[in-house]
């Protein structure tokens, strides 16, 4: 039955083959049967070649070797079976179906055994240069280190007798190796002891032994429930190295026990490690294990010990905080957490713990609100007035804790006084974020007057008085409210506050940074709300710290920040940060302010490193919407200066249509402006520079609607005669532009390939491959053909096109997105593409361990042959994986016969005459239809002659 089915399937294969002898787009195509010979043989011969081999794949119907079936099948066992059949090649050679099946299985069960493949050991090539350097350096270091250690070890005298080694096992017992025997005899036979043995007789152990063996006989040998591990090791006789090694090993054992959940055991091993050498790591780990066992006080001791050894150990601090918390020492816990945050401001664990605490505090707060406010006032005071009180540190940390209230009553009194004086102060405090986003009264914010020295002085003066009366120019208040809003996760409000701050004074970099953060958070919080929480707090706390830091510096800094416009923006990095921030949140206003505050002359330098299409577009937008109507002369100046940026011409072509429209709009408007600052001519010149330059540049539109990789750069070029001369000088630059045009939304890798392709002739092929992947080849050729007039470039372009065009046919196959492997199907399609005639693919049976496929093709001339061969070598080289060997072309000097051994495939390229003469096909497809062979009686053939491998019968179709 099974055979019949297979035979039917084969005949269906056959008809397809005869209909489309070369149709490789059909996955069904079968190279597999013992010898599938195309081209040379007639269809009838091919049919006779198609003999069904013994079918061991009986349980898998042929219909199941199908994409749709595999896709829908969820029976893992069956799929694995299918995969085995596919891999065996008995039903045919379907590389993509096999791959598909593998992927499907992997989806169902990533750990399936059929997916395990034999790997070769990794080599240097499997690692990046840096990784390999790390590995080898690590090894070298260890080598030298261990050599040193060994030398030290050898220098030490040998105290083999000093060691306290347990005595030799006293009983020369023998154990029967079968359990039944033990049960029969009951216990080990009593051996008469010699006098010497009696000297060593230890009553305790002997008794223990007897007890043990008694117990043993009673319950058929079950291990004692609790293992007794001694917690210390006698290290008196050990050398330092031995101690170190031993301590390390005990710690490892502890770690392992910890990992498997045996905390008691872990503690025991850590203790042993500590008894040898008290290392911070072991102590620290013991603390963790003790915490798991909820032995808080011991954990506390360990943490203390660690912190004595390493004062800044974050883990120890965190653990101590946890221990303190569980022991009810809120204050100390808090201290530790603050300490952690001082060292590592973004420590998520600390922040979480702190947040928990704050949460609980907030609960408390609902009970006694008035008291709470007082304490917050204290904090606010600390920051705003430059207090010299010694107890300040304590004070801040004690915020929100009971003991804090107790210990600082005196301070609180003074604060209450201030509070009664200035009730408004409280409402604007960022410290009030716990209650609400304290609303600023309109009076607080109404003034948008630019900061003056005078108000600053006043501000500082008032501060010195210790009276934090709010000033009209209340950037700080706004900034704080933003912080508060942020704490309350009201990002929109926070953003608007920050923007207001920036309106007042663009140079407040804190605000800019915060704005960026907030925008980022806003986007994130839109995506998900759950895990964001801790991050939110991160930022909040960080800012708090920063804020407190600035509080310590006092009011001088506050005024310094405001007055130092020029100082701040002199730094290209700062400027870039700010600009990027604005671009990323799409904040035109900020950008405009930024541009306004910058002197035009310095703009190229500041912007130089940042300028890309997006930024430029943004700048243009900002200029157009915000600055053009108020400061036209500034806009012109900026544009003039921007044009001197050396990358500008390149960047200009990256502008999209809208931005370009805006640019021309700007120039139109500038034309309309009547001032003394600039003349109409200036504008026209500049407009020519900007807009005409763009004419000969490539215009690139991004189709963002395409999926990834569909980054089609629709490049078409408008030629401008005027610019022709200039253009010819600029070939090199044009190339770069091309690269840049691909840059737009490609990943680094592609960018690199693209760049490489333009700079090096050798790698043109790579570019070709890249091109056809991205279906860009046509466009690139356009670019080259039209833009490059010189011969050199046109040649280059031509070469490029040919390679690029040679490959795409392969990609028309369904399901084949990336050509990754140089396999038979690829080889055949390449051959077809190269106009090789009479392609014959012979599947060599696995019994002959020579190769998998023998491919024989004819070419029209010696030149044709070598062209095909060279091309195939090139493609192979390109697709070659690291572990694959290099291949060589055999018969370079031979005109009529060339051969390439690809490993699993051997390709013979021959002229038709030689092919007829040598009849290689027959050599590899010995079958009953070979007349010559038929005539030879089988017994006269050599004994190891493989004659018609499995089937001597002729097929029935």
């Amino acid at each position: 039955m099974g055979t019949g089915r297979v035979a039917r399937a084969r005949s269906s294969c056959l008809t397809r083959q005869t209909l489309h002898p070369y149709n490789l787009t059909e996955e069904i195509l079968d190279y597999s049967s013992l010898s599938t010979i195309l081209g040379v043989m007639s269809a009838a011969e091919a049919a006779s070649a198609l003999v069904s081999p013994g079918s061991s794949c009986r349980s898998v119907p042929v219909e199941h070797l199908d994409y749709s079936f595999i896709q829908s099948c969820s029976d893992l066992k069956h799929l694995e079976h299918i995969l085995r059949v596919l891999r065996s090649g008995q039903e045919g050679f379907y590389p993509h179906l096999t791959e598909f099946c593998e992927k499907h299985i992997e989806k169902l069960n990533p750990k399936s055994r059929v997916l395990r493949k034999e790997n070769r050991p990794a080599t240097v090539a499997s690692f990046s240069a840096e990784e390999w350097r790390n590995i080898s350096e690590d090894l070298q270091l260890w080598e030298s280190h261990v050599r040193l250690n060994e030398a030290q070890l050898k220098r030490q005298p040998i105290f083999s007798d000093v060691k306290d080694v347990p005595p030799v096992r006293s009983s020369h017992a023998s154990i029967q190796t079968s359990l039944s025997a033990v049960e029969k005899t009951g216990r080990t036979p009593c051996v008469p002891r010699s006098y010497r043995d009696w000297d060593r007789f230890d009553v305790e152990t002997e008794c223990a032994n007897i007890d043990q063996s008694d117990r043993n006989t009673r319950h058929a040998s079950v291990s004692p429930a609790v293992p007794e591990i001694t917690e210390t090791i006698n290290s008196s006789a050990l050398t330092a190295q031995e101690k170190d090694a031993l301590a390390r090993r005990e710690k490892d054992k502890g770690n392992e026990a910890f990992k498997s959940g045996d905390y008691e055991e872990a503690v025991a091993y850590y203790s042993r490690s500590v008894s040898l050498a008290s290392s911070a790591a072991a102590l620290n780990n013991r603390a963790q294990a003790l915490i798991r066992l909820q032995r808080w006080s011991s954990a506390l001791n360990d943490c203390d010990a660690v912190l004595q050894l390493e004062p800044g150990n974050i883990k120890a601090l965190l653990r101590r905080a946890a221990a303190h918390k569980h022991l009810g020492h809120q204050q100390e816990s808090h201290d530790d957490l603050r300490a952690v945050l001082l060292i590592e401001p973004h420590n998520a664990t600390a922040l979480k713990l702190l947040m928990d605490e704050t949460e609980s505090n907030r609960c408390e707060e609902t009970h006694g609100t008035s008291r709470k406010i007082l304490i917050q006032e204290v904090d606010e005071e600390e920051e705003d007035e430059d207090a010299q009180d010694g107890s300040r540190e304590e004070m801040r940390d004690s915020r929100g804790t009971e003991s804090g209230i107790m210990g600082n009553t005196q301070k609180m009194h003074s604060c209450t006084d201030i509070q009664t004086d200035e009730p408004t102060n409280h409402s604007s405090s960022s410290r009030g974020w716990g209650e609400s986003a304290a609303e600023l009264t309109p009076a607080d914010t109404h003034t948008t007057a630019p900061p003056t020295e005078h108000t600053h002085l006043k501000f500082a003066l008032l501060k010195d008085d210790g009276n934090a009366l709010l000033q009209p120019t209340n950037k700080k208040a706004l900034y704080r409210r933003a912080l508060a809003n942020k704490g309350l996760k009201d990002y929109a409000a926070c953003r608007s506050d920050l923007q207001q701050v920036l309106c007042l004074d663009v140079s407040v970099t804190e605000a800019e940074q915060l704005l960026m953060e907030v925008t980022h958070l806003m986007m994130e919080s839109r995506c998900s709300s759950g895990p964001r929480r801790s991050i939110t707090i991160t930022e909040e706390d960080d800012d708090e710290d920063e804020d407190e830091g600035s509080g310590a510096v006092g009011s001088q800094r506050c005024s310094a920040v405001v007055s130092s416009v020029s100082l701040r923006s002199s730094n290209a990095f700062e400027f870039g940060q700010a600009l990027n921030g604005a671009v990323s949140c799409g904040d035109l206003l900020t950008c405009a302010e930024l541009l306004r505050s910058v002197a035009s002359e310095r703009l190229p330098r500041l912007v130089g490193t940042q300028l890309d299409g997006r930024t430029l577009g943004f700048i243009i937008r900002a200029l157009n919407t915000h600055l053009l109507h108020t400061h036209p002369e500034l806009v012109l100046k900026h544009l003039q200066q921007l044009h001197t940026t050396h990358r500008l011409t390149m960047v200009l072509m990256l502008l999209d249509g809208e931005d370009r429209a805006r640019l021309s709009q700007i120039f139109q408007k500038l034309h309309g402006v009547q001032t003394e600052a600039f003349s109409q001519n200036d504008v026209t010149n500049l407009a020519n520079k900007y807009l005409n330059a763009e004419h000969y540049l490539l215009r690139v539109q991004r189709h963002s609607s395409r999926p990834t990789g569909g980054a089609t750069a629709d490049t078409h070029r408008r030629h401008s005669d005027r610019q022709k001369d200039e253009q010819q000088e600029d070939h090199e630059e044009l190339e770069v532009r091309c690269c840049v045009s691909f840059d737009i939304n490609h990943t680094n890798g592609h960018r690199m390939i693209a760049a490489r392709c333009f700079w090096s002739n050798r790698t043109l092929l790579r570019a070709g491959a890249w091109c056809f992947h991205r279906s860009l080849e046509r466009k690139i050729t356009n670019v080259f053909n039209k833009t490059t007039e010189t011969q050199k470039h046109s040649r280059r372009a031509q070469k490029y096109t040919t390679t690029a065009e040679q490959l795409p046919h392969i990609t028309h196959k369904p399901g084949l997105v990336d050509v990754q492997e140089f396999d038979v199907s690829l080889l055949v399609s390449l051959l077809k593409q190269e106009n090789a005639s009479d392609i014959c693919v012979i599947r060599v049976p696995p019994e002959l361990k020579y190769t998998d496929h023998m491919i024989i093709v004819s070419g029209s001339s010696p030149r044709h042959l070598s062209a095909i061969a060279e091309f195939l070598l090139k493609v192979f080289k390109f697709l070659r994986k690291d572990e694959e060997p290099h291949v060589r072309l055999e018969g370079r000097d031979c005109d009529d016969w060339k051969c390439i051994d690809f490993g699993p495939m051997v390709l013979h390229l021959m002229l038709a005459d030689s092919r007829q003469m040598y009849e290689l096909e027959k050599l590899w497809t010995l079958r009953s239809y070979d007349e010559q062979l038929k005539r030879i009686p089988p017994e006269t053939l050599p004994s190891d002659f493989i004659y018609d491998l499995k089937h001597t019968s002729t097929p029935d179709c």
Partner: protein
Amino acid sequence: MSSTLEKPQIIAHIQKSLNYTVFDSRWIPCSAKFVCMGNFARGTGVIQIYEIQQGELQLVKEIEKAKPIKCGTFGATSLQQRHLATGDFDGSLNVWNLEMPECPVYSVKAHKEIINSIDGVGGLGIGDGAPEIVTGSRDGTVKVWDSRQKDTPVVNMEPMEGETKRDCWTVAFGHAFNDQDRCVCAGYDNGDIKLFDLRNMSLRWETNIRNGVCSVEFDRKDINMNKLVATSLEGKFHVFDMRTQHPTNGFASVSEKAHKSTVWQVRHLPQNRDVFMTAGGAGNLHLWKYEYPAQRTKKDADNVDMGVAGSVNLLQNVTLSTQPISSLDWSPDKQGLCVCSSFDQSVRVLIVTKLNTV
């Protein structure tokens, strides 16, 4: 390529062809040297010491002995002495001082036939109690030796008279976490695994895995026994959870078919007991990780504790050679460094990367 960056990778760092059949290879503790033991074609035994120097193997010393050497261990020597204990084809147990290898420090005719396997405990700071060596031989006996006692073993584990003597292929020490407790596990050619308790001088447990046991090893010798891996002739290996012994069912185990051929060796990473490497008859190495179950014990119907086996995860596999890999040893000092010898008469130094992140 991207997947290679996440998993541990096995790098064939150095390969060296030898002119003899190498049976065993061992790192010398606290050094960048290892010893290879085997036999020359002329029928004599050989011990070679190699040292890694800048990515090359330098032959430090070659010692020729009368009888082919099957196995060796440093397990029962102190870190200062670093004496090598070997078992040879003749059944002799010798302890060599590699600095002065002319005559053995300790020598005993331990068995009537070839010593297949040797293991040591109590030295190098691994395992509490007296340093002892255990040998398993074709004559069916397993003997424990103390180098301070001449001529006679301290414990002898042999089949009862009249019972058929099975070839003992492998022995391993374990459970040596205090001065009294110690266990020896032995694997036999008929698939028997026997666990001898040296404290109680009794056979604690036995089982049969239906195929010859090629290699057994405890995950660590010097802890309350935790896991035991036993590899077998037909390509399977078994991992026993040795923490909970059920009176009737014994220890829980998980088995995994890893290789298509005999699993010759299993070695646990000294720095992480849950990672181990198996070496196969087709020249391949598999790196595994044992994952503990959520609960390591459960109650059976009679409310008696029984163990629960976890699972094993394949981390990496490579094919190094076409011949069986006869021995494998992790460096005790450098995590991820290991040496393996195979029957294609070569020894290889391997580096396994990213073991600290598995």
